[in-house]
C-alpha cells in the first residue's frame, strides 16, 4: 500500500472498501485534486468514482463541484451565489464551491488558469475564444448536456459549438449592441429614429445645429470603437464577410474593408471629438447629461444611468441600414455563459450544473444582478423585464444572425495588439486608409499565418 500522495487521497482511504465499491484507479482519478474535496471528503471519493465515466446527467449527483467565477463585484457575486444556492437546494448532497477571481485578472489569466488546476465549471464567453480552447483540448465536451437543453435558439446553439461540431458552452445571458438615445431628448427636439445612413447624417447635422454632439464616443480603452467597426461592417458587407474577416480568411486590403473605413470616415465628424482621451463611461455620462444625442454601445450602457426614470428614458434602435441589399438583420449580441474544464473532478455534478444554468430559473436569478442584460433561454419569463430588456429580447430574437463582438470573434492577440492600435490610429487620422489597411494586413498575416 503506497503512501497517499495528497490529502484528498488520504481522506478517501478512510472510507471502508465496502462503501467505496470502486476500483483504485477511478478513486485516484477522482481524489486527485485540491482542497475542494476536503469539504466532502469521503463522500467525494464515492461520487467521483461513480459519475466520472458515465457523465449521465439524469442520475443523482453528489459531492462538490467547483466553479470559477469572474463575477467579482458585489451584486453579480451575490447573484451567482443565489443561483448556485438554488442548484444546491434542488440537488441535495451536492455542494458548490465558488472560486471568485476579479474580472480583469480572470480574463487576463485564462490561459494560465486553464492549464493550471481550473475549477470544474467556469464563466466565459461564446465566440472564437471558446472554440479556440476547445481545439486546444482545454475545455470539456458537453454535447450530452445539450441533448437535454430546451429553449435555446439555433443561433445560440451555433454560438456554443466548437469547430468540430460538438458543444462546449452553455449560454446564460447576453446583450445587444445598438444605437442608444434618450427618449426625452428626441421628443423635445423632435428627432426621428434614422433608418438609413442618409437619415443618420441628416439627424446628425440637425443635432449639431442644436448644440449636441451627435454621437458620443470614448475610445481610451481601445475596445469600444471595435463595436462601431463591427456595426458598419455588418451593414456594408454583411454577416458572412464579417465572420470571414474575423476568422482571418479575408485580406484587409480588400476594397470591401476599405469601404467600411471610408463609410466610417464619412460619419466620423458626427462623433465626439478627442475620443482617445475619453473613457466610455465619460462618453456615457455625456449622453446622461444630454450633451450628446446618440451612442453606439452595448446595453450595459444602462448601468451608467440611475435606476428609475433615468434608465426608463433610455431607448435604442438598430444601426441604420447602409446597403439595402444587406439590410439590418445582423445583430451583435455577445453571449456570456459557462464552460466545463477538460478534466473536471466531478464531471457528473458539473454537467448537471451546466444544465441548470441553461434554464430560466438560474438565468432570471442572474438578471437580478444586472438588469441591462437578458436571459438566453427563450422560455424565460419576461414579465419582470424592464422596457429596455423587453426590447432587447425582441431585438435579439428577431435577428437572423448574431455576432459576438470583434474581440470575441477573432483571435485575441490580433484584436488587442493589432486592431486596437489600428482603429485608434484611424480615429486620429481617417485620411490614410490605404496605409492603415496595408499595415493591418501585414500584421494579420504574421499572426494568422496567411
Amino acid at each position, binding site marked *: 500500500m503506497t503512501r497517499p500522495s495528497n490529502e484528498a487521497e488520504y481522506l478517501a482511504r478512510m472510507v471502508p472498501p465496502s462503501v467505496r465499491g470502486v476500483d483504485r484507479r477511478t478513486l485516484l482519478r477522482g481524489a486527485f485534486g485540491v482542497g475542494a474535496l476536503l469539504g466532502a471528503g469521503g463522500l467525494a471519493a464515492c461520487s467521483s468514482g461513480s459519475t466520472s465515466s458515465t457523465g449521465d446527467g439524469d442520475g443523482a449527483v453528489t459531492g462538490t463541484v467547483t466553479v470559477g467565477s469572474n463575477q467579482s463585484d458585489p451584486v453579480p457575486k451575490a447573484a451567482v451565489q443565489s443561483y448556485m444556492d438554488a442548484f444546491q437546494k434542488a440537488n441535495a448532497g451536492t455542494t458548490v464551491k465558488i472560486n471568485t477571481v476579479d474580472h480583469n485578472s480572470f*480574463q*487576463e*489569466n*485564462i*490561459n*494560465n488558469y486553464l*492549464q493550471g488546476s481550473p475549477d470544474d465549471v467556469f464563466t466565459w464567453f461564446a465566440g472564437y*475564444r471558446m472554440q479556440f480552447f476547445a481545439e*486546444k483540448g*482545454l475545455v470539456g465536451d458537453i454535447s450530452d448536456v445539450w441533448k437535454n437543453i430546451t429553449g435555446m435558439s439555433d443561433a445560440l446553439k451555433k454560438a456554443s459549438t466548437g469547430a468540430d461540431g460538438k458543444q462546449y458552452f452553455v449560454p446564460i445571458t447576453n446583450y445587444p449592441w445598438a444605437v442608444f438615445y434618450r427618449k426625452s431628448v428626441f421628443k423635445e427636439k423632435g428627432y426621428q429614429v434614422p433608418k438609413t445612413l442618409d437619415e443618420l447624417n441628416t439627424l446628425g447635422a440637425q443635432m449639431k445645429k442644436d448644440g449636441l454632439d451627435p454621437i458620443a464616443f470614448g475610445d*481610451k*480603452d*481601445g475596445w469600444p470603437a471595435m463595436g462601431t467597426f463591427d456595426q458598419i461592417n455588418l451593414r456594408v458587407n454583411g454577416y458572412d464577410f464579417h465572420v470571414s474577416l474575423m476568422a482571418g480568411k479575408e485580406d484587409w486590403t480588400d476594397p470591401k474593408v476599405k469601404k467600411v473605413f471610408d463609410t466610417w470616415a464619412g460619419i466620423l465628424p458626427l462623433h465626439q471629438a*478627442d*475620443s*482617445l*482621451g*475619453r473613457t466610455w463611461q*465619460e462618453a456615457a*455620462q*455625456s449622453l446622461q447629461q444630454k450633451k450628446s444625442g446618440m451612442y453606439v454601445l452595448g446595453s450595459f450602457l444602462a448601468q451608467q444611468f440611475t435606476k428609475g426614470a433615468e434608465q426608463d428614458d433610455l431607448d435604442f434602435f438598430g444601426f441604420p441600414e447602409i446597403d439595402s441589399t444587406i439590410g439590418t438583420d445582423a445583430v451583435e449580441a455577445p453571449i456570456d455563459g459557462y464552460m466545463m474544464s477538460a478534466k473536471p473532478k466531478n464531471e457528473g455534478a458539473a454537467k448537471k450544473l451546466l444544465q441548470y444554468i441553461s434554464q430560466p430559473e438560474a438565468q432570471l436569478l442572474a438578471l437580478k444582478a444586472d438588469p441591462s442584460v437578458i436571459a438566453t433561454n427563450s422560455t424565460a419569463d419576461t414579465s419582470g423585464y424592464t422596457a429596455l430588456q423587453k426590447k432587447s429580447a425582441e431585438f435579439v430574437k428577431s435577428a437572423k444572425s448574431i455576432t459576438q463582438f470583434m474581440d470575441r470573434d477573432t483571435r*485575441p*492577440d490580433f484584436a*488587442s*495588439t493589432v486592431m*486596437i*492600435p*489600428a482603429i*485608434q*490610429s484611424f480615429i*486620429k487620422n481617417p485620411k490614410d486608409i490605404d496605409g492603415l489597411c496595408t*499595415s493591418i494586413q*501585414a*500584421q494579420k498575416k*504574421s*499572426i494568422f499565418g496567411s
Partner: protein
Amino acid sequence: MASKRKYKGIDQLSTRDKVVVGLMVIVPTLIVVWLVWLPAISTVLLSFTNWDGIGPLSGIKPVGLQNYRDIATIYPPFWPAIQHNLIWLAALFLVATPLGMLFAVLVDRGVAGTRFYQTSIYLPVVLSLALIGFIWQLIYSRDQGLLNAITGGTTDWYGDPNVNLWAVLVAASWRHAGYIMLLYLAGLKGVDPSLREAAKIDGASETTTFFRVVFPVMRPINIIVVVVTFIESLRAFDIVWVINKGRNGLELISALVTQNVVGEASRIGFGSALATIMLLISSVLVVIYLRIAMKED
C-alpha cells in the same frame, strides 16, 4: 601581529569564515539564477518561436528571426516606444532626478517639520497604481478634469499623442522625485558630519559645502541614483499602463511586452522578442556601469 600589511591582514579568512562568505554569496545567487536568469534564458529562446503559451513544450515551433523582423518593420508601436523611452530617460535625468536630489539636500538640513516634508514628497511612491490612475484622471481628464476646468481649455491631455507623453511625465516625475529623494537622503545621512563641520569652520557657504565636500564623498550614492534613473526609464511601465495600457502616444517597451504576454493576447514568442530587445539594451547599460565601477577600483 594580525596585520602585516594594512589591507591584506583584514582580508585573511579562517575556514569557517570562508564557509560563511561562500554561503552569503551562493544562496542569493542561486535564487536569482533560478528565478530570474533561467526564465530570462527561456525568454530569449522563446523569442525565436511563435508560441502562444498553451500546450506542451514539445509543440513549440521555431521561426528564427521572424519576430525580430516583424517588430522592426510591421509592428507600428515599436519605434515610437523606443523614442518614448529615450524621452522618458531625458526627462528623468534632467528634471526628476535632480529634483529628487535637491529635495533630499533640502530635507537633510533638518529643519523643523522635516518629517512632514519627507512624507509629502515620498507619498506618491507608496500609492497603489489604481489610486495613481484615479488621481491623474481627475486632473487630466478632457471633459471632467481639473486642469481643463481651471484653464478653460479642451486639451485632450490623455488622448492627444502630442501632449500625453508630457502629461504623463509630470505624473512620473511626481513619483520619481520622491523615490530619488529617499535614496539620496539615506546616503546624505551617511556622510560624516565632521566633514561638513570642517567646511563650515573654513567658512564655506552651504552650496560650496555641498558641491565641493558632500557631493564627491557621495560618489557611490550618486552612481546608484544615475543607475536607478536609467533603470526606471527603461522599465517605465506603471503609469502608462494604468492610463491606457500604453497606446496612442504612450507606447513604452515594457508596456509592449506586457500587452503581448499578459492577458488573452498571449503572443509569447513575439513578446519574448520584445523582452529580449530590452535585455540587450539593459546589458549595454550594465556594461557601461561596470566600466565606470572598474575605473574606480
